[in-house]
């Protein structure tokens, strides 16, 4: 498995998109921390951008890389290697390199400018989001044979979680505004990794006081250590389940 990862990394290091992504994150974070005197404010601006960029890049990069390395996978399948190891090796290579990009692009600026719990929370939710969307992208790529379909599906998933889902929740809130919906919304939010990541970071900030009654509820339920533990567990489930399904499909896939 690690041998497969080794060759994936060997290939990915020279990938221009990944380098551009790293540089972009680095410049962006440095600018934010440099321009804003209050590092907490900078983190809240970064949060908005990271929550959009990280899932998007993870999905598109992974899907296109997977289809481009189809030949490599074909070559490996005819060798004495287990299919599970081939797929997990590929995953480790891609997810690992995206994580390294985040460590360089976000982790280093945080260490330089604002080494505090809030910024670190942003950092590790960023890493979890990379892992989650890489495994969702793997699922899309393994489930479809056609590159255009796979790409479309992963874009759709990204669009759904970052735009449509919030709209749906707002719609529900609006149409059932006569009922007490706080707990329902809380549960619904947990089903969207991007929202959950955002809330985990926001609860570390003072701004959560501005979110009104719902914010207070989030704080009482998710703000405790127990709540944080549960939300991280949910994010981990988001990353592991698609990967397991993906392995299962790949074992039966015809190449």
């Amino acid at each position, binding site marked *: 498995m690690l*041998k*497969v990862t080794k*060759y994936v990394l060997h290939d990915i290091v020279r990938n221009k998109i990944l380098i551009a992504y790293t540089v972009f994150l680095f410049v962006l974070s440095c600018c934010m921390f440099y321009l804003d005197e209050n590092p907490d404010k900078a983190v809240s601006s970064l949060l908005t951008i990271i929550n959009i960029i990280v899932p998007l890049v993870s999905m598109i990069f992974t899907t296109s890389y997977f289809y481009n390395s*189809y030949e490599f996978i*074909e070559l*490996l399948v005819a*060798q*004495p290697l287990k299919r599970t190891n081939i797929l997990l090796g590929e995953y480790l290579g891609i997810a690992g390199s995206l994580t390294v990009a985040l460590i360089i692009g976000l982790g280093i600026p945080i260490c330089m400018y604002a080494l505090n719990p809030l910024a670190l929370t942003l950092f590790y939710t960023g890493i979890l989001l990379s892992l989650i969307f890489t495994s969702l992208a793997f699922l899309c790529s393994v489930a479809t044979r056609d590159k255009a379909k796979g790409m479309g599906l992963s874009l759709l998933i990204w669009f759904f979680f970052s735009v449509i889902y919030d709209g749906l929740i707002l719609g529900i809130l609006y149409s059932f505004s006569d009922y007490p919906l706080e707990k329902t919304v809380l549960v619904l939010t947990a089903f969207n990794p991007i929202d959950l990541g955002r809330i985990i970071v926001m609860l570390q900030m003072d701004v959560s006081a501005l979110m009104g009654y719902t914010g207070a509820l989030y704080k009482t339920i998710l703000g405790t250590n127990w709540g944080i533990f549960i939300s991280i567990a949910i994010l981990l489930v988001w990353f592991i389940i698609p990967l397991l399904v993906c392995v299962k499909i790949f*074992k039966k896939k015809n*190449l």
Partner: protein
Amino acid sequence: MIEINQLRKSFGKLDVLKGISTTFEPGQVISILGPNASGKTTLIKSILGMVIPDSGTILFEGKDTNIDPYYKKKIGYMPQIGRYPDNMKIGQLFEMMKDIRKEKALDEDLLQQFDLPSMFNKPMRTLSGGTRQKVSAALACLFDPPVLILDEPTAGLDPVAAEILKAKIHKEKEKGKLILLTSHIMSEVDELADQILYMMEGQIKFNYTIADLKDITGENKLGKAIMQYLKAETYVESN
């Protein structure tokens, strides 16, 4: 050595293999023939575990190939169209295969004869179809495996390279290896193989040694013999 039982495979509504059963033994050179889309490549890919059959079993030295992939250590495979990672150089590709299989190169004859080491710095994407074929052939033989599976080995090779490859196949046959090959060039099959497995619409039409086939039909040339056999067959069926 390889035993196939009632192998079935369909892609969607298309039934590609409709219950194939046969055995292959060491020392045989078997040519899998048949019209286009008769399921030859699917059969080969099933043996290699690249296509997962719907039902039926493939046993390699008595072990089910579905359970343990390590039987592939004993197979050298040359695909119809060799597709390799674009960014990789030829030299890196060979190094990688040695690393992944955790084996040393045992048989570099083809590598030398095709003069590949002089091109070790060329990236795979810049190679012509013929050079890719040479790389595939050299890779298939690299670890001196007891089974060779060659899917249209000489298609796209220049005459000199094709002769080198044929000589190599002869040599491997002498060593008592099992060689499976598909080809559309009858003279080549006649020259290399000693047995024919003829497939049609996902089923085995016949499985004879070349000598027997020529005897039965009374033809001297393999191409004609096959035509004759199929004609006689359809004549018998229609009456």
